[in-house]
């Protein structure tokens, strides 16, 4: 479990670096969505969607991912709030409106 967490944390750092240092070279004019829907957003949303209901790693990923994005953005904290909000929304929708069938 700890190995998995370390791996995911390292992945977030790598994604943040790719986002700020590699992705800007491939921004095409007009792709406004690109700056909001970035690699860390996608990773955090994916973790929130696919982790077990009892698991809380997505919250930590939202905070860690938000911190990395906020290091390259102003004011500090905007991305943390956005990602925590996204995780909260996903968790709420999954809990209230989504039933995942279980066959075993």
């Amino acid at each position: 479990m700890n190995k998995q967490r370390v791996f995911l944390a390292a992945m977030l750092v790598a994604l943040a670096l790719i986002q700020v240092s590699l992705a800007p070279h491939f921004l095409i004019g007009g792709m406004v969505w690109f700056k909001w829907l970035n690699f860390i957003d996608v990773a955090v949303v994916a973790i929130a969607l696919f982790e077990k209901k009892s698991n809380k790693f997505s919250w930590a990923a939202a905070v860690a991912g938000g911190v990395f994005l906020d290091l390259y953005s102003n004011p500090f904290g905007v991305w943390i709030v956005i990602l925590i909000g996204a995780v909260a929304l996903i968790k709420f929708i999954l809990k209230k409106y989504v039933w995942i069938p279980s066959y075993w």
Partner: protein
Amino acid sequence: MKITFLNWLKIAIAGAAGAGLIAVLNLPEVNSAVKNASYLALEPVQHGIWNAGASIHGFLEPFAKINSAASENEQLRTQVNGLLAENAQINDLKKENDFLRQGLNLELDKEFDLKLANIVAKDIARDTLVINKGRRDMIDLGMPVITAQKSLVGKVTDVYEDYSEVTLITSKDFTFDVRIGNGIDGLAKGQGEYLAELGLIPKDKEFKSGDPVYTSAMGGIFPAGLLVGSVDKISRNDVESFQSATLVLSFDARGSRQIFVASGKAPLGLESGAKKNNE
């Protein structure tokens, strides 16, 4: 699972602590120190990634533009012919300029104190770059940032100990005075996403697509005579009292690796030289 009062209390305390921490991290000194330390730790990797991105961008760019290559080729041929004629004129002017320079003992690099910096990152949501020169290297707020070809990139808007933040001229709401072609004043305005446009150009002034655009000393933001780009599509409207145009920038932040931070006075005669070339 039912959330008890105790759990609500824990969530409220955690939220308040988080909000407090974010507030502290937004204090200028703390924010500057934290960002500087983080950039310092991550720079070796980031520098490599940025350079790799610039190389890949340079390799892929011709493929992305393959559709417009034929018409661009035609345009370039026309431009080359024009430039060859201009080049002959410039050579004459250069000889004259060298002669005058020797006479005046005027050296541009003495007037422009240039500091070479590597680009390490770009802001996620805005047109800003992080460069690896900061307060320690005498970088200060408002300093113009240019390329090796003396094309304007932007200005320093945040300075940390070892790093600085450069706001590109394409950043939204970034405006500065420019001079189009042979002396038409206008205003350049960033549009975000590496785009910019020209505005407030008097209606009675004639200029054409491809005319070079230089900075003007009027607004006091940049020294005069730095190349900004060239005029692209001109928009003339009977209803509006000014003309506007889109701007093709002369620098490409996506393909760039290094830039210069310029301090000191504007190079004397650079603007008049630019004007002369256009005339």
